[in-house]
C-alpha cells in the first residue's frame, strides 16, 4: 500500500493558501529526490530539529569526554542535598556529590546500552518478524511460538534470569535489552508484514523471479522501515532505563555508577526531600529519548515530502 510518514495533503493545509501567500510547510520541504545537501538545508530551518540534534550532540559530548572535562561524579564536592545553585547547577545528592557531574558521566552507559541495545533488538526482532510474516505457515508458527514463550514470561522474571546468565556488564546489558525487546518487536513487524503480504507488489516481485531474501530486503523491509524506526526509538528509552528495572530487583549496576536508570531508582525516595536528585537523571533520559524521536520525526517528514 502506501508509505507511513507520508501525508495526503488535505485542502486547508499547505499549499492551499490564496495565490499570493507563500506557504510555510511546503517551503520547508525539500524537493522530491533532492540531493542530501538540500535535505539537510531544509532540516536546518526547522528549529525543533536543530534543538534535537544539539541535545543529542550534547550527550554524546559528555559520554565521550566527561573524564577529559574533569567533572567529579564520585567525590563529595559540596554539602549534602544542596539545592541547585551556581556551584552545583543540578544540586548535590545525599552523599554530597554534584548531580550534574553524575548525570554527565551517566551519559556514557546510557549511550552505550540505549542505542546499541535498542538497535540490536530492532535488528533481531525485525529480521525474525519479517521472516515469520513472509513465510507464514510453519515458519511463522515456530518463530512466533518461541517468542510467545519469551513474551509470556513475566518481564521482571525474565530479567532476573537473563541477569543471572549474563551479568550486568555493559555488553551484557545490550544483550539483555535485545533479548527482552526483540520478541515484541518481532510480533509487531510480523503483523505489519502480514498486511503488506496482502498487497500486489509482493506478488509482482515474486512473479519477477525475485528471491525470498531480496523480497524481504528490498520490497518488504523498506515498507516496514518506518515502523521499525518507531520501534527502535521507543525501545531506546526503555533500554536506557533497563538498569532502573534491574535495580528495582536489586540487580542493577554497581554503585557508585552514575548510570541514569540506577540513579532514578536509588534517589526516588528523595523525591520529596530533594527532587533534583531524581529530576536530573529523569530529564536526561527524557531529553535523550525526546530528541532522538523529534529528530527522527523531522527526517521522516522531509524524506516523505512529495511521496504519494
Amino acid at each position: 500500500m502506501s508509505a507511513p510518514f507520508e501525508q495526503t495533503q488535505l485542502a486547508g493545509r499547505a499549499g492551499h493558501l490564496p495565490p499570493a501567500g507563500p506557504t510555510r510547510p511546503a517551503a520547508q520541504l525539500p524537493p522530491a529526490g533532492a540531493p542530501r545537501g538540500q535535505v539537510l538545508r531544509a532540516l536546518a530551518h526547522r528549529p525543533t530539529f536543530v534543538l534535537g540534534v544539539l541535545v543529542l550532540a550534547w550527550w554524546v559530548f559528555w559520554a565521550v569526554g566527561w573524564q577529559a572535562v574533569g567533572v567529579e561524579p564520585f567525590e563529595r564536592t559540596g554539602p549534602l542535598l544542596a539545592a541547585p545553585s551556581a556551584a552545583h547547577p543540578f544540586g548535590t545528592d545525599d552523599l554530597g556529590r554534584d548531580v550534574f557531574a553524575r548525570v554527565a558521566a551517566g551519559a556514557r552507559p546510557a549511550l552505550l546500552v540505549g542505542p546499541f541495545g535498542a538497535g540490536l533488538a530492532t535488528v533481531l526482532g525485525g529480521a525474525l518478524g519479517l521472516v515469520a510474516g513472509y513465510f507464514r505457515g510453519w515458519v511463522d508458527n515456530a518463530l512466533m511460538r518461541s517468542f510467545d514463550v519469551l513474551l509470556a514470561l513475566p518481564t521482571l522474571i525474565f530479567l532476573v534470569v537473563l541477569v543471572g546468565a549474563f551479568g550486568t556488564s555493559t555488553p551484557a546489558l545490550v544483550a539483555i535489552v535485545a533479548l527482552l525487546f526483540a520478541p515484541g518487536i518481532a510480533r509487531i513487524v510480523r503483523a505489519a508484514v502480514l498486511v503488506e503480504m496482502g498487497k500486489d507488489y509482493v506478488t509482482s516481485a515474486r512473479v519477477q523471479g525475485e528471491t525470498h531474501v531480496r523480497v524481504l530486503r528490498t520490497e518488504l523491509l523498506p515498507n516496514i522501515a518506518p515502523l521499525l524506526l518507531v520501534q527502535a526509538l521507543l525501545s531506546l528509552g526503555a533500554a536506557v532505563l533497563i538498569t532502573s528495572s534491574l535495580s528495582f530487583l536489586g540487580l542493577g549496576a554497581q554503585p557508585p555508577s552514575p548510570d541514569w536508570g540506577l540513579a532514578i531508582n536509588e534517589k526516588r525516595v528523595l523525591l520529596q526531600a530533594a527532587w533534583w536528585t531524581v529530576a536530573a537523571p529523569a530529564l536526561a533520559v527524557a531529553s535523550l529519548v525526546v530528541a532522538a524521536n523529534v529528530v527522527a520525526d523531522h527526517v521522516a517528514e522531509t524524506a516523505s515530502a512529495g511521496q504519494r
Partner: protein
Amino acid sequence: SFGSGEAGAAGAGGASGGSSAGGTYALGLAEPDSTINPFTVSDWNAMFVVGLVSEGLITQDGKGGLVPRLATAWEVSGDDLTWTITLREGATFNDGTAVTADDVVATFTTITGADSLSPGASAFKDVLATVAPGPGPGTVEFHLARPYSDFPVLLTGSNTTILPAGTSEQADWKADPVGAGQFLLTEYTPGQGVRFTKNPRYWDAGNVLLDELHVKFYADAQAQLLAFQAGEVDQVAADPTVLRTLGAEVKQSAPGYTKFDGIFLDVTVAPFTDVRVRQAIAWALDRDAIVATVYGRNATVANDALYFPDYAVQPGGLTQRRADTAKVAELLGGRRVSFTITTVDTLQTLAEVVQQQLNATGSFDVQLSVLPSAQYYADGADTPWLSAPATITNWARRLPSQYVSQLFATGAAWNASKYSNPQLEQLSAQYDATTDPGQRQDLADRIAAIEWNDVAVVVPAFASSRLVLAQDVEADFASGQDFSGGFDFRHVRLS
C-alpha cells in the same frame, strides 16, 4: 470477626478513630519474607507479626535494662551454673491455658534440640546444657555448660518466646496463632496485611490500651512514607530520608540501639594481612559524617570495639578514632591500597560513603560490589558475606562476648574476618564467668583494646532505632520494636 467500629475506620482509610477508647493503631511493614513461626522466624517483619502475639520471659528496655515479662524473677546459683526463673502467676496463653514451667522447658528444648531449625539456637550453643522444671511451683532451672553472667540477656533474644508444650516447630503457626502476647491475630491476608485485636487474657491487659492493631504491608519504603504522610499509618521508621522529607518538627520516639554495620576485613587475605592496612582504614573514616549522612544522626560514633553504648559495661582508655589522613598515610607508608568491598544492597549508602571517604584520602582505591541479599547471604562455602575479603554486614545488638564467640573465635560460624586470637577468646570467657563489676570493667578494657588494635572489624557507628509517630500517638515506646524489646505496645494510645 472484626468489630464494626474498626471495619468502618479501615474502610475510610483512616488509621485511627475506632469507636472505643484506645483505637486502632496502624503501621506499615514489608511483607514477611519467611515462615511465620515463633521458632524459626528470622526476618524482622515476621518477628513483628509473631512478637505481637507471643511473649518471652524477659525483654530489654531502650536503655539495656531487663524487663520482667513472663518471668518475674531470675537468679543464679552460687556456682554460677544454674539460673532459676520464676514464672508470672496467672499468665495464660491466648487459648486460656496457663503458662507453666513445662511449657518453658518444652520451648527451650525445642530451640536447642539437635535438629532445631531455630536461628536462636546458636546463642545457647556451648552455653545452655539442660532446662528443667525448678523445685518450686512456677520455676524453671537453666543449667549452663559454663558460667555466663549475662545469661538473662540471652533470654531476651530471638525466637525465645514461650509456646505451649507440644507445639511443633513445623506446625503452621499462622493457622493457630497461639501465644501469651498482647494481641490476637485475627486475619492474615497475604500481600495486604495483618489485623490484630487486643488479647483480653494478656497478663497486663490493663495497660494494653489499643483495641486493635493493623499491620499493612508496603513492599516499598517510599510507599510507607507516603502512607504515613497520608495518615494511613501511625508510625514510620525514622531513616535519613524520612527525616529529611518530614523535617525536624515531627514527633519522634527513640527507644534504643539496635544494630551496628561493621566493615569486616579478612585478615588472612592481602592487603588485610597487614594490620597497618586495617588500622589505616579505621583511621580514614570520618565517623561523624557517617552518622550524619548514613544514619540521619540516629547513631553514635563507635570506636571499633563491640560494646553498645547502652551496655552496662563501657570500655575505657581508648583513643576515639577520627578521620586522620596523615595517620593513614603514615600507616600505609605512602602505599596506595586497592580492594573491593562487598555488601548487601540495604547497606549501599554506607558502602558508598565508606568508599568515598577512603578514596578521598588518596591512599585507597576502593571498588564496591553490592549484592541483593539472597546473593550476599547465599549458601555454601563461597557465600559472599563470609568469604569476600572485605564485607559490610549488619549485626543486631548482642552481648560483647557473643560477638567474640560468634564472629572472632577460632572456627566460629560467622567469622568473616577469619580472625582468631586465643587471648581474646580466653578474656571473653573470663568475662562471661565473672560477676564482679570491677573485674568485668578491667576485662572489658582489655578485650576492647585488642579489638581496637587488631581491627578485624571496623565499626563506625552504633545505630539506634527511631520512629516517627503520628501526632495523635500518645506515650513513648519503652523499647525498640524488635524481639529483645518484645514488641511492647503497652501504654500506647491514640488521642
